[in-house]
């Protein structure tokens, strides 16, 4: 056994003593919605702009580098990880940030998508494991955002729509930064919650679903759609 491991283990033990004071945690809860109604996979939904119905069958998205800000004191809390949100799995929509160093949160920012560094590192595990169905196999790169379903208005086979938005190389880097300001800042106590709505109707309304219902590779169309990502998010007060 190396000296390093020995020292490290003792540090780990000592650390147990240091932790007697309570930690402050935050749970961010992402809530996929269609307008004001919470998303039900495979069931009928309507968007505001039209009487047309649609069904969403898959919704998955990467969120990464979450930063909590206290804009008054300029303090920050940074979570470097990437998280895969999957509408099929409620647990994946909850992100626990532990041991906050802040006293107050007045805004939050994060990325939708996986950045170019992570995209060229090779094989990764956990939420970035290629078995999550969020990695293109014919042209390396993560799918940042996946929305699939069908609507009678789509002029496509089985009336399907399919949006696999990704691409990390200039000029088609589809990662987008989201910034949300809290109307009522959170004063940190032991357990804190932040609910963020993701309104998928915003994305479906941003394209003409009748004809533009299949964007599955990096490029101009994917970039246009990604430009609408920020419209989806809002703090649920």
């Amino acid at each position: 056994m190396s000296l390093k491991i020995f020292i490290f283990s003792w540090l780990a033990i000592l650390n147990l003593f240091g932790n007697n004071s309570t930690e402050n945690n935050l749970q961010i809860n992402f809530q996929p919605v269609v307008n004001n109604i919470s998303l039900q996979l495979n069931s009928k939904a309507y968007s505001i702009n039209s009487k047309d119905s649609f069904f969403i069958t898959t919704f998955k998205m990467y969120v990464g580098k979450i930063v909590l800000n206290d804009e008054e004191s300029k303090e920050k809390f940074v979570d470097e990880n990437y998280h895969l949100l999957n509408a099929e799995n409620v647990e994946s929509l909850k992100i626990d940030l532990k041991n906050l160093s802040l006293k107050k949160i007045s805004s939050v920012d994060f990325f939708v998508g996986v950045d170019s560094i992570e995209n060229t590192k090779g094989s990764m595990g956990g939420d970035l494991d290629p078995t999550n169905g969020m990695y293109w196999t014919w042209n390396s790169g993560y799918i940042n955002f996946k929305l699939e379903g069908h609507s009678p208005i789509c002029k496509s086979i089985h009336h399907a729509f399919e949006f696999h938005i990704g691409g990390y190389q200039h000029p088609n880097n589809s990662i987008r930064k989201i910034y949300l300001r809290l109307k009522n800042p959170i004063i940190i106590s032991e357990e804190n919650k932040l609910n963020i709505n993701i309104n998928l109707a915003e994305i479906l309304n941003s394209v003409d679903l009748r004809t533009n219902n299949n964007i599955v590779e990096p490029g101009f169309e994917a970039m246009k759609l990604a430009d609408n990502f920020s419209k989806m998010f809002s703090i649920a007060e």
Partner: protein
Amino acid sequence: MKNLQKIIFGVFVMLIFCVTFSSFEKKKPDFFVTKGFPKPVYDFKKNPLDERKILLGRVLFYDPILSHDSTISCNSCHSQYTAFTHVDHALSHGIAGKVGNRNSPSLMNLAWAKSLMWDGAINHLDMQALAPISNKLEMDETIENVVKKLQHQKFYRENFYAAFNDSTITGQHVLQAIAQFMLTLVSANSKYDKVKRGEEKFSDNELSGYKLFKKNCEACHTEPLFTNGMFENNGLPVDAELNDMGRMKITKDKNDSLKFKVPTLRNVQYSAPYMHDGRFKNLNQVLNFYSMGLEHNKTLSPILLNRKIYFNTDEKENLISFLMTLSDKEFLYDTRFSYPKR
């Protein structure tokens, strides 16, 4: 009382730590960086080579379990005796006899590859295996299902545990293991290498051929890897049926039209047929093409535009005898790369 519990717990944690780490010391293989070669592109720190991972990768490379109907392995299209390319097929053949769109390249010295595939579609060696596994014409499988199938086999559970200290198989580990095996496919012991090391001498013909090579080919097929790793248009007329635009498919940039990754010429003697679509059956045809078959289209490499290449019969013979000095027989018969005993 609470503190006592913590101490006990702490000591326990430490014990587990020590035990796992001491029993899991890495078995470093005797690899590899070859004299005269540049620094590898592959970042070994993220996936440090280990004998057990290499062996696991080798078993996977030869196992048709990676394909949907268990008929096709990586080896089906990349066979050792032809420097890991597809024997005799211009376009590779995959599952249920389906014909692919491109010629399978030979596999060697992949630690130095900046990107993979003729058009650079794959950005990292770890991710390479995903492409054939999912390709409908090749193995027609998904990595999710491969992981499931492997998890069902005691052999793989044990060997993944031995290699990664984790018997739960993940996509990450499958890909890392296959990449490790491919990284060991180093060819650096041809006559050319021996001449460079001062162990052998070129014949007169080979030497004349080497001079022709330096003048006409070196700019793209750069020593010692015999590729500069870049995308170039070498003037190959487009095949109307395949209509393969090469690099442009990936970058969507007109300036990349008809550019393909410069292939290595090491072991070129064994890797016929040639070019991305395997249109040339032998090296003579290749040299005839460079002599007089170039198509002068918009993206033709300036190197070829500015140099009129013409070889007479003697020159062709000499150039080919030089190319033969890039053959590395040991690589073709190295038992570390062959079908593994399980």
